């Protein structure tokens, strides 16, 4: 028994020594140079940027880059905490069009327009106008887009052919529902359509909101009265829930973008309405069994002529950063035309971060690699108008989300109700009744502010 402690102690000492060495190695190597700490979302396109960082470091001697790469939810929470409290860990952060304008208004982000104007050859007029607009506050850009996305409808051309069906050029949601009913084949394990059902404001609410807008629904009227129990909202929610329950994927209430993407790429869904960024997985032979078998149609519509959304991952500089010039050097490198060319040549043209610059769509190599989807993607992004989502006036901006700080919480609660309705735990009416109460609480706060 007495021999118990020494081996354990030896083990501890040994590992401590090892950890001491490794710990020392974790410190920045050079003390004269600048180390930029950059928080990014761990998506494939960002990983490509991480692996290309040595090119940036070669062009900018004395500057080294350290990335903090986290999944979307963790990254968003961490970046928000850091920026809001002035934690100051980061010299640049990856945010979206949801945060940019709000944070610019609070003074949390550095105005990038002076840097943009002073950088030769950084053609900011080349950014797609809807995206440029959505990242600007009082006419100045506060973050620069790394890639942009809208939504469209992917469908399996081979399955359509087999069933003798045809996808209309501009499908309506009713047509999509009919097609889904025809193609739904539970025995073969192929769902008619894959639509997100997972709770979370960035999950089920993104496609649902774009559908809601085209159904003529809205979250609030101009006076911040919640409209979640209005007939239009009920119709949209009922349609979405019925479609997923009847002809959607199994277990839809737990299935978000990642799961749908996986199902569609593995041939287990005939249609998939979601982010245009799906193509980097769907058309990648390493991760997909349906490469080259998809057609892409514009986002389905009902009342209005546009049914898509607008989202972008962009880079901003926190006001607390002590290395703003170096941070801008990095931002401009990662969002420049040259970067797109580098990725295309090093990793292949299907892997370039699309949808931030108009010029990308004119590169012949990109046109060739992305022929099937480049058109509908650009069209979806260009036509998005976050200032006027839907068919009726609203007091907020944003398509897939409402660009108000309360939306993270409100959206999460409402999405939980919607997801519960998809799971069949509550009826659509019950879900909306509850959601209406949540939304009105937020609306009341804005009413008082307006008074």
């Amino acid at each position: 028994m007495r021999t118990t402690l020494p081996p354990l102690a030896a083990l501890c000492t040994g590992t401590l020594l090892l950890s001491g060495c490794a710990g020392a190695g974790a410190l920045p190597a050079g003390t004269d140079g600048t180390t930029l700490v950059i928080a990014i979302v761990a998506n494939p396109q960002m990983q490509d940027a991480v692996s290309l960082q040595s090119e940036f470091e070669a062009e900018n001697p004395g500057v080294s880059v350290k990335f903090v790469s986290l999944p979307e939810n963790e990254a968003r929470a961490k970046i928000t905490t850091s920026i809001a409290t002035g934690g100051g860990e980061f010299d640049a952060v990856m945010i979206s069009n949801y945060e940019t304008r709000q944070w610019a208004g609070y003074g949390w982000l550095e105005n990038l327009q002076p840097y943009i104007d002073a950088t030769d050859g950084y053609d900011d007029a080349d950014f797609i106008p809807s995206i440029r607009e959505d990242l600007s506050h009082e006419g100045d850009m506060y973050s620069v887009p790394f890639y942009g996305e809208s939504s469209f409808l992917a469908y399996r051309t081979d399955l359509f052919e087999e069933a003798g069906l045809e996808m209309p050029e501009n499908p309506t949601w009713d047509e999509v529902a009919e097609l889904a009913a025809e193609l739904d084949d539970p025995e073969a394990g192929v769902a008619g359509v894959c639509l997100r059902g997972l709770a979370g404001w960035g999950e089920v609410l993104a496609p649902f909101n774009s559908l809601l807008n085209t159904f003529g629904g809205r979250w609030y009227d101009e006076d911040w009265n919640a409209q979640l129990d209005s007939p239009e909202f009920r119709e949209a929610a009922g349609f979405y829930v019925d479609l997923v329950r009847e002809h959607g994927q199994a277990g839809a209430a737990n299935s978000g973008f990642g799961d749908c993407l996986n199902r569609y790429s593995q041939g287990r869904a005939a249609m998939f309405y979601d982010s245009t960024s799906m193509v980097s997985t769907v058309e990648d032979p390493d991760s997909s069994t349906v490469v080259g078998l998809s057609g892409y149609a514009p986002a389905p519509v009902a009342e209005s002529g546009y049914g898509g959304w607008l989202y972008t991952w962009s880079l901003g500089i926190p006001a607390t950063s002590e290395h703003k010039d170096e941070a801008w050097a990095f931002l401009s490198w990662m969002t420049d035309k040259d970067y797109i060319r580098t990725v295309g040549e090093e990793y292949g043209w299907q892997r370039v971060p699309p949808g931030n610059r108009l010029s990308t769509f004119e590169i012949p190599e990109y046109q060739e690699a992305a022929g099937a989807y480049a058109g509908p993607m650009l069209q979806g992004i260009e036509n998005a108008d976050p200032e006027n989502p839907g068919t009726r006036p609203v007091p907020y901006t944003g398509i897939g989300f409402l660009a108000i700080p309360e939306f993270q919480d409100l959206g999460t609660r409402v999405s939980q109700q919607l997801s519960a309705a998809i799971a069949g735990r509550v009826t659509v009416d019950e879900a909306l009744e509850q959601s209406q109460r949540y939304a009105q609480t937020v609306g009341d706060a804005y009413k008082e502010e307006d008074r």
Partner: protein
Amino acid sequence: MTAEALVKPDAAAPRATRAPAPPTARPRRRGAVGAAALTTATWAIALVFVSPALWLALTAFKQEGDAATDPPKLFFEPTLDQFRTVLASDFLPYLGNSLTATLLSTLLVLLLGVPAAYALSIRPVRRTQDVLFFFISTKMLPVVAVVVPLYVAAARLSMLDNIWTLVVLYTAMNLPIAVWMLRSFFLEVPRSIIEAASMEGAGLPRVLWSVMLPVMAPGVAATALICMIFSWNEFFLAVNLTASQAATVPVFMVGFITSEGLFWAQLAAAATLASLPIVVIGWTAQRQLVRGLSMGAVK
């Protein structure tokens, strides 16, 4: 006088006192069938519990495409690609940080916890029960409720992204549990050997170190391992309070989760590597652990 001499070797006692089975055939056969059924059931339950870990390790050797199939693939061409990817993404600094935070905090917990548990078990005072309750009550507040104050405090003290912040927090996080565990082990030590040692003239440090600790070694080892596992796996504080310098292995691991594209195989490889150190430590201390973990439970 050594501790071994004082503790009665009672492990052999039950075997000696068990009555020999009656020499009739029927009960013995029934016993054999029962034993076989019990063994089968034990194996089945063990397999059920181990299978997720095995599946994780298996997935780590797959290509992303193989890892995402439905139905899942059991046979495939194994590859080390995922491990290469993980090791190529600067794994060692994270490993160093995790080892530092885990080992230092466990050491601190034992340094603080052993005297505290001694005082609370061997020399109780009037308020001992209250003190014990106070210790455990610190675990009742959900950590999410304190993370923002902690973050702001760390930021003001310029301690963000600093491994010492995690060492301090992990020590505080594990100390209550360690005191409770250690206390139950102290209570197991027969009073007679403490009194005997005192009568021979041993002072408190001597009693603690030379008399009690050897008896309690399995208990201390079990407590240390529990603290190590908790610190090693801790994610929430680590992800919120660290960035590029002090990030630990769990934070490194989630970097492989992406909302676009496949990541199961990569994540499985990272998770397999991340769990190896704890598995090795557990394996090394296996015999002590089994004794230690059953020590407080069976009287």
